[in-house]
């Protein structure tokens, strides 16, 4: 269970959001929407434990967690705006880097299967430098496919993905929620996931001025 209590963040003098109480239970997908600059990325970074909120707190499994908290780092998989791919490394090496950082020890075969599943079997040994934007994002999908993390935090996961990849991400999220996982994602487009599991949060921008 991921909760926030009276969470607030500001950028410069402008409050992005304030008094934000939210709760994501196992099996739920929280879709954060809102116009550009409304604080979606900031919220996601706070929830992932990468940034400190201006006010309020984040609770994970009932306990208050600060940035880079060890309890959160054991559980969270964060796919942010930045690709975290090395141009010099191949698709497979990049994927292995991710799973190693997650302390998720896999057979080489599992990596190959995951890349096959996201349609990158032919690009497996190519350096990430020559992959297209969408193909690079698909490596991130393969990472999620292998991840054993409970809490997925995805910032604009649909960017540069084609219809087939979006459908496969939807199926992946459904399966994750089905298995008791949690997900918070920010998106401008709608995702093909079961509505029963989805909750949405609209950030409207400046909630208060001072």
């Amino acid at each position, binding site marked *: 269970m991921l909760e926030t209590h009276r969470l607030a963040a500001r950028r410069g003098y402008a409050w992005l959001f304030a008094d934000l109480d939210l709760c994501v239970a196992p099996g739920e997908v929280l879709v954060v929407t809102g116009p550009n600059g409304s604080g979606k990325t900031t919220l996601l970074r706070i929830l992932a434990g*990468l940034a400190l909120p201006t006010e309020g707190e984040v609770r994970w499994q009932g306990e208050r967690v600060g940035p880079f908290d*060890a309890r959160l780092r054991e559980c969270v998989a964060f796919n942010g*705006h*930045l690709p*975290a791919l*090395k141009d*010099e*490394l191949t698709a497979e090496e990049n994927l292995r880097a991710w799973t190693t950082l997650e*302390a998720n020890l896999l057979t080489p075969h599992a990596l190959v299967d995951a890349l096959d599943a996201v349609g990158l079997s032919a690009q497996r040994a190519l*350096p990430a430098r020559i992959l297209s934007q969408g193909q690079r994002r698909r490596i991130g999908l393969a990472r999620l496919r292998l991840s054993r993390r409970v809490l997925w935090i995805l910032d604009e996961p649909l960017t540069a993905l084609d219809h087939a990849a979006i459908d496969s991400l939807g199926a992946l999220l459904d399966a994750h929620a089905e298995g008791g996982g949690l997900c918070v994602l920010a998106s401008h487009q709608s995702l093909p996931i079961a509505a029963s599991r989805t909750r949405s949060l609209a950030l409207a921008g400046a909630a208060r001025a001072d």
Partner: protein
Amino acid sequence: MGWALARDVRIALRSKGELGVELLFYVIVVSLFPLATSPSRETLATLGPGVLWTIALLASLLSLSRLFAADFRDGTLEQIALSPRPLAALVSGKMMAHWLTTGLPVALLAPLLGAQYALDGPVLATLMGSLLLGTPILSLIGAVGAALTLGTRGSGSLLALLVLPLYAPVLIFGAGAVDAVRAGMSAAPHLSLLGAGLLLAIVAVPFAVAAAVRIALD
């Protein structure tokens, strides 16, 4: 730690251009001094240790931007900081990779380049030994500066201002060791101090760098 080390070495070896530029810079600048000053053996032998040490230091500085900046820009550093593995160990691996790809070749090339300065066998051996002890300190101190300047504008020049004064003691004891041998004395006191500095840096720096990286990401 081993993972970060292997990964960074692999990336450095695949981007041969950058690595080559740093080492070429070292080789070329060291070779320019005998051309620009006098060809007298005595002058060159006096200048040699200081020149080699100073340029080794600049070569290390030149490569510092490679240490964290690329990982910071492409988001890898976020993933590293979010890993359940201890951040201090992961950044230690990165610093070791930095030394293996810059400090170590610089130290190994030194006897070859030192020959241009009419330095003889024992002096060249001390030069290499002092660089082998001193360049890891440069990588470690530099890493703190590189992590602290992440995300700041004009971080390159700021990094130089921050790090160069801290490099000074390493330079003094490193070049001092070589001078001592040239004067017929023992290099042991200088080398012991370098060794002590290295041990201190190995213990303290990873935690400082880990803290600086977390600040930079927030």
